[in-house]
Structures are given as structure tokens and as C-alpha cells.
């Protein structure tokens, strides 16, 4: 078990730079999820740590050891691949025990270790089977078995659940979480699925364009994204953005002409920006009855629009509507009788909104309500 540290790691393929100077520390025993859209460099970063790719510059530490020039097999890590990379010509037992065999463990000891691992994962009855005879979930488990049997310092998981169907994926996610808690092995989990990231991670690392966007606990990243990208990437449905022009020191004007006054401390952060975007989570928009208008607070934005689509999630509903020309999504338990095609009254409080600079997307303020 060990901590991990990336220092100024860079990697490019030809002219294309995929990792642009990453600094990151992972604590011993932590489960960290790398998340980001495809091409963001998350897998590359993982493979750099595994030693499957060679970094251009920077250094990586596992524990106290600088691992840059250490061969993959000597880094004491185990990796689970997207398609598991199980050997089709070996039985389950041989697959699980492969690493031990390569490391010269004798047959008897190996068999015992394989047995233990298999019972831990509920694979005991499958030991003599070949991978092609197994279901997707069982294969996944064999891959995990092969990883944990060596008791490595670090687990690396490269989108290990993406080949499973939705139900099995949830189940395996929980299993991985439980297993990691029990083994307390430092784990890096790569995914492009933000739900997986939110539910699994001790800390999430959001990557985009070869850079770390933000690192933190899932709830922290959700409530306090540092930029428009993080805000947009986490949460489903995505956060809604509404464009706004600054028309006074602390006055913002929305495309529909509505003005809203910010508290003076927020206005200060705006400094000399002329244009911003207001980010508001779907669950922070309310559908209000027309009669409730009078009850509105001062920094509340209210507008009416038509409903284009309603999706029911059971206890909650997703309502799709518009602000001006932009579609907005609303997640609510109380749709106040909204129907597809009908006109509804929408409102949100600026206390729940995030302000982002239009030019570089950075978040301008912690939201007043959460601050």
C-alpha cells in the first residue's frame, strides 16, 4: 500500500500533446477516479503510471519510490483492463495464478493463493473453466482476482465496467467499492461515466484536454466546480447555462431583458468582466404556480416558457423547457401539473447559481447559499 504522486507529467504522441503537465497526489488507501471525456488523457495517465507508456518529462512516485525508469512488472501494481485481457487458453485458475507463476511461486503455494482469492470473489466453482465459458460479470471477477492475488500496492482499473450491461455494472461497482474498502489498496479507477465517478470515488480527478481541472470529494466538485467544464461534466442532467450581460456594477441583464442585482461582494469578483454565464443545476429550478409570484425574493429570476418534454424517473421528473432560445432541464419532485406543450412559470434563486466568466469559463464565486 502506498501513496502516489505525479509531478509535472507530460506526454505527447508526435505533435499531439495529450498530457500537459499534471501534478497530483493520491493518498495511501484512497480510491481515486479519473474522469473526463474521451481523449482527455485519463487512460494515458493511468498507463503512464503502469509503465505501459513512457512519459516525456516529469516524475512519478509510488510510495517513496521514483518509478519512472522502473519496469512495469517491478512497480508492484496490478491493472484491470477494459476487456479484462484474460488468456483464452488458460483456465480461470491459471489466469488468476499467472502472475504468481511468472514470479516463480511454487505450485502448491500458488494453488492455495488462487483458492483463497477465488473464494473471496465467489469464483471457486469456476476454477477449471476457460474464459469463453464465463459470463461478462464472471470474467470481470476473474480479472479482479488476477489483480488482487499478488497483493499489489496499487490497483489500476481502466474502464473495467464499460463492457457490462447497466444492472451488472451497478452491482460490480458496489462490489469493487466494498472490496477496495476491505483491502485498503490505493486504487485509481478510470471512467468516462460521471455517475460511476460520483458513486465510487473518495476523490474525483476531473481531466480535460490533458490537464487536471479539479480534484476533490464528489460532493465538493458537484457543489463547487472551479470552472464551467467541471460544472458541466458532473451531474445528470447537465447544469444549465444562461448567458448574461453586465449592465451595471452589480447588475446583470439576461437575454430576455430581465435584470438582476447581485450582492456587492459578488459584484466585486466580477471586476471588469462584461459578460458572464449563470450556471444553475436542474434541481435548483422550480416550477411555480403563477399565483406564487408575489412571494419571490429579490434576486430570484423568473420566466415562463413552454414544456418540450417530460421524462419521469419515478420519484422525480425531468422537465425540459426553454430560457429564451436555450433549452433548460429541470429536475423536480413537484411539477405543479406541468404538461408537455403547456406553459409553465420557472424560477431560480441567484443564491443557488454559479457565475462563470464567459471568456475562460472559470467560476467567479462560490455560490452564496453554499459558501
Amino acid at each position, binding site marked *: 500500500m502506498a501513496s502516489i504522486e505525479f509531478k509535472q507529467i507530460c506526454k505527447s504522441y508526435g505533435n499531439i500533446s495529450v498530457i500537459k503537465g499534471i501534478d497530483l497526489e493520491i493518498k495511501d488507501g484512497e480510491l481515486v477516479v479519473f474522469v473526463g471525456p474521451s481523449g482527455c488523457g485519463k487512460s494515458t495517465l493511468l498507463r503512464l503510471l*503502469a*509503465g505501459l507508456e513512457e512519459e516525456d518529462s516529469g516524475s512519478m512516485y509510488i510510495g517513496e519510490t521514483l518509478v519512472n525508469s522502473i519496469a512495469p512488472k517491478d512497480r508492484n501494481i496490478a*491493472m484491470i*483492463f477494459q*476487456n479484462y485481457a484474460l*488468456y483464452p*487458453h488458460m483456465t480461470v485458475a491459471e489466469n488468476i495464478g*499467472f*502472475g504468481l507463476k511468472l514470479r516463480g511461486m511454487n505450485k502448491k503455494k500458488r494453488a492455495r493463493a488462487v483458492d483463497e482469492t477465488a473464494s473471496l470473489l465467489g469464483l471457486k466453482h469456476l476454477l477449471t473453466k476457460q474464459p469463453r465459458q464465463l459470463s461478462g460479470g464472471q470474467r470481470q471477477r476473474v480479472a479482479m482476482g488476477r489483480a488482487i492475488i499478488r497483493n499489489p500496492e496499487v490497483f489500476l482499473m481502466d474502464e473495467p465496467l464499460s463492457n457490462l450491461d447497466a444492472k451488472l455494472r451497478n452491482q460490480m461497482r458496489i462490489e469493487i467499492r466494498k472490496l477496495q474498502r476491505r483491502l485498503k489498496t490505493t486504487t485509481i479507477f478510470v471512467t468516462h461515466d460521471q455517475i460511476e465517478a460520483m458513486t465510487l470515488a473518495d476523490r474525483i480527478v476531473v481531466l480535460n484536454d490533458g490537464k487536471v481541472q479539479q480534484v476533490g470529494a464528489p460532493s465538493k466538485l458537484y457543489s463547487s466546480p472551479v470552472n464551467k467544464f467541471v460544472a458541466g461534466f458532473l451531474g445528470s442532467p447537465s447544469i444549465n447555462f444562461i448567458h448574461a450581460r453586465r449592465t451595471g456594477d452589480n447588475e446583470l441583464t439576461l437575454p430576455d431583458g430581465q435584470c438582476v442585482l447581485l450582492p456587492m461582494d459578488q459584484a466585486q469578483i466580477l471586476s471588469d468582466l462584461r459578460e458572464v454565464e449563470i450556471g444553475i443545476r436542474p434541481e435548483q429550478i422550480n416550477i411555480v404556480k403563477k399565483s406564487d409570484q408575489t412571494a419571490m425574493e429579490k434576486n430570484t429570476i423568473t420566466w415562463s416558457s413552454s414544456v418540450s418534454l417530460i421524462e419521469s424517473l419515478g420519484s422525480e421528473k425531468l422537465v425540459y423547457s426553454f430560457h429564451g432560445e436555450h433549452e433548460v432541464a429541470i429536475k423536480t419532485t413537484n411539477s405543479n401539473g406541468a404538461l408537455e406543450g403547456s406553459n409553465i412559470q420557472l424560477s431560480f434563486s441567484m443564491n443557488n447559481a454559479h457565475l462563470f466568466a464567459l471568456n475562460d469559463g472559470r467560476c467567479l464565486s462560490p455560490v452564496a447559499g453554499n459558501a
Partner: protein
Amino acid sequence: MMVDACHLWLAMRKVKYMADNVTARGKKRLLKPFYNAGYIKAWLYLAPALLFLILFTYYPMVQVLWDSFFLKEYGAEKKLFVAFDNYRRLFADEDFITAVKNNLIYAIGTVIPSIVIGFGFALSLTQSSRFKNCIRSLLFFPTLVPLVAAAALWIFIYFPGIGLLDYYLAKLGIQSTDWLGDPDIALYSLMILTIWKNAGFYMLFFIAGLQGIGEEYYEAASLEGAGWWQKLRYVTLPLLAPTSAFVFVIALIHVFTHVDHVIVMTLGGPMGSTNLVLYYIYQNAHEFNDLAKATTATVLSVMVLLAISFFSIRTMERGIHYES
């Protein structure tokens, strides 16, 4: 011809699969296969190819087998039934025994080296780059040259004293060698030509096979602690087994069905040292006027080739299991 037989066998297996599928879908498994619509359809698809196979492959095979029990002495009027006398004559013929021995040495000495070399080439040339593609084409080139032309070319390479080989060996201070004229060396000279000609061909199969092995198998092996040799031993070789089996059979069949270079380079000499079974058959049929002996030797080689073919299909079918 043997390859055709393989195809037919595979086709018949397919008929069975097709018919099984059709029955499964129609849930009429209890119906006799003969009346089964799927079966009839499948056989109809197969009919044209089967007809030609029977006409041009199986009928001649049966005919040859039949003929091997008769003897029409050269110049005689009548064909006589002699039972197994042709077989007795064949095994009493020192030339035939020599040809079989030569063919065995030739088989072992060409199949294994050309496969190993082809595999080696493939291993070092799997990743493509412009340079490697170029080398690959160069190595594949001998395959494109007809064996007759290759043999004609190698006559000059082997030319004692002034041939390419002796020319360069002389620079190393090695005396001129009579590559095709020395009965102790001639067969090995032909073997080198064969290896030169075939290794590139087998390389191509191995490259295709290697490219079919996912990179992650190697990456997983690296992380599990495998070195170069262990990756070769535990990942590459087992996963390449179906390809290897296929190449092995192709190579074996090659050994028994190609003698152009013998005809061009040595005529089986000196002293019968380069005579191979197929050339022996050719000689007896066309030059020695002993058709019965040629026929009998043909029956035996067809049997050997059939055995190889069926063995090959077995291994290839076993290989299919790896793909899942």
C-alpha cells in the same frame, strides 16, 4: 487436391451446422434430417462444388486406387490384375525407398526451419512502419517468384566457383563447393532454396496471426511480471497455435506437392540424392514407362496427404475455440 478435400470437409460441417440451426429455429428437431428443409437447402448450395469435386478429385482418386491393382506391362496388349504386386514392386524399388527417405529429410529440414524463420521474421516485423513494410515486401518477394524461376535463379547462385554463393564464400576464404553436384550436399541445397522461398510466405500468416493478438494481452503480461521470453512462451505461442497448425500443414503439403526445382536443378540426381516422391512418380509415369508403379506411389502419397489434411482440420477446429 488435398486442400479441396479440406474445403469439402469444412463445407459438410457447415451443412450440418446450418441444418441444425434451421431445425432449432423451426423446433422440428424430431424430424428425420433427410426430410428436413434445412438439410435439403444446404445440400443444394453444396451441390455444384461437390459435383466438380467428385468429378475431378474423388473419381480420379478412386480410379488411381483401382488402377494400382493392375499391371499393363509396357508394350503389352493386356492389363492384368496383380493384386498387391505393384506395392511389392514399389517397396522393392531402391529408388522409391531413397525418394521416401529424401522426402522425409526434406520435410523435416524445410518445414521446421522455414516456419521458425517465418515466425522470427513476423515477430520482428509485426508493427508496421515504412521501413518494416519495405523489409516485409522484400522477404515476401521469393513467394511471388514461381518455383521454376526461383530454381533457375538459384542454379546461378549455386554455380560452383563463379556463382554468387561461392563468389562471396571465396572472399571469406572458403573453397568452392559443388552445391548441386555433390550427392552429399545437393538435397540440402534444394532445402535452402525451399526455405528461402517459403519462409516469407509463412511470415505473412504469422504476421496476420500476431496482429490478431490484442495488445492488452502483452500489457497484462508485462504487469504480471512477464519478460520477453515469458510473453513469447505464455502469450504469443499459445494464442498463435491455430495459425501455427495451419502453417504447419500448408508447409507439409508443400513438401509433397512441389518438385519443380528438382526438375529444373538436379533431375533427382546426383545418384538419386535429390529424388523426391513426386518426382519419382513423374519419372515412372512419363520417363520410365512404369505407370503401375507411378500409380501405386500416387495412392500412397495421396493417403499421406489425406492424413495430413484431416489432422489439420482437427487442429484448426480446435483453434476456433480460442475466438470467443
